[in-house]
């Protein structure tokens, strides 16, 4: 049975707050640590930036090769969502119920990443191949 984090993240969050009411600094090592505790905002931000990085890389790659056709747009959406899901469910092993469910986690940064992907893809394709 896969281990799931309970809702102890709230207690851990309170423990981490210092006297000024700020959360302790996020550590890079926590990115791949399934035992790390997550604040909802922190996890949301991480997933947002991962999506943006994927969008930029895929856009640059798709445009450089070039990959042409609407199917490659759909592939990007599926690929980036799959990577995000794999990251929070399999690597971090977070309980999605504590963070608003799969929908809330998968939609973090989705719209901006799709726009960034299209922008990078269109720009590289236009500039490199015409």
């Amino acid at each position, binding site marked *: 049975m896969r281990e799931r984090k309970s809702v102890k993240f709230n207690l851990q969050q309170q423990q981490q707050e210092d006297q000024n009411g700020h959360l302790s600094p996020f550590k890079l090592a926590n990115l791949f640590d399934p035992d790390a505790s997550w604040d909802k905002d922190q996890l949301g931000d991480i997933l947002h930036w991962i999506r943006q990085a994927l969008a930029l890389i895929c856009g640059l790659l798709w445009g450089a090769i070039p990959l042409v*056709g609407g199917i490659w*747009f759909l592939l990007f959406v599926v690929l980036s969502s799959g990577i995000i899901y794999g990251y929070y469910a399999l690597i971090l092993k977070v309980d999605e119920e504590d963070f608003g469910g799969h929908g809330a986690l998968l939609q973090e940064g989705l719209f*901006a990443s799709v726009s960034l992907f299209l922008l990078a*893809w*269109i720009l590289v*394709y236009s*500039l490199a191949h015409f």
Partner: protein
Amino acid sequence: MSSTLVSNMKYSDSLTVVGISICTAIVCEAISWLLIYRTSSYKSLKSTIDKASKKLETMKTTDPNTATTIKKSKTKKIDRVESSLKESSRDLSMFKFKSGGVVALVLFMVFGLLNSLFEGKAVAKIPFVPIKLVQKMSHRGLSGDDMTDCSMAFLYFLCSISIRTNLQKFLGFSPPRGAAGAGLFPMPDPKSN
């Protein structure tokens, strides 16, 4: 040498559009910071919303052992916090709306400038044929039947969404997650437009 390379590219105008979008995004966020984000009203509203959201999350996490006995009083408390959260979110929206007029004016002027520079001209090539709904924007003002020609309006739209959303996120100006209307597809904060 680099300027010769750029000028030889058929769609070098796309770089102009992106460059102007980046500058516009920076100017708009600077204006928003001046008129909205640095004010004590905004900071206190944001803090209220953050605290109410976190409190609501904690309260909605039920302890199964005591769920039945404390249900009624807890439900009332949750309702009170939710109402308070909605009210604060509404106040925040109204506050940003009043101050956002200047930014809206800047965006309008920039769009007008770009339109005058690139009207009727394809600034990029789309690597697929967009759906009919998107073609209304992507082929706006362009002649011919090649639907992979990209108009300035579509490229500017993509730049606005991607650059401004990420800039707001990077600078910490995104609306709080608990605010009403964060939605399925969070756009760049519209009230600062």
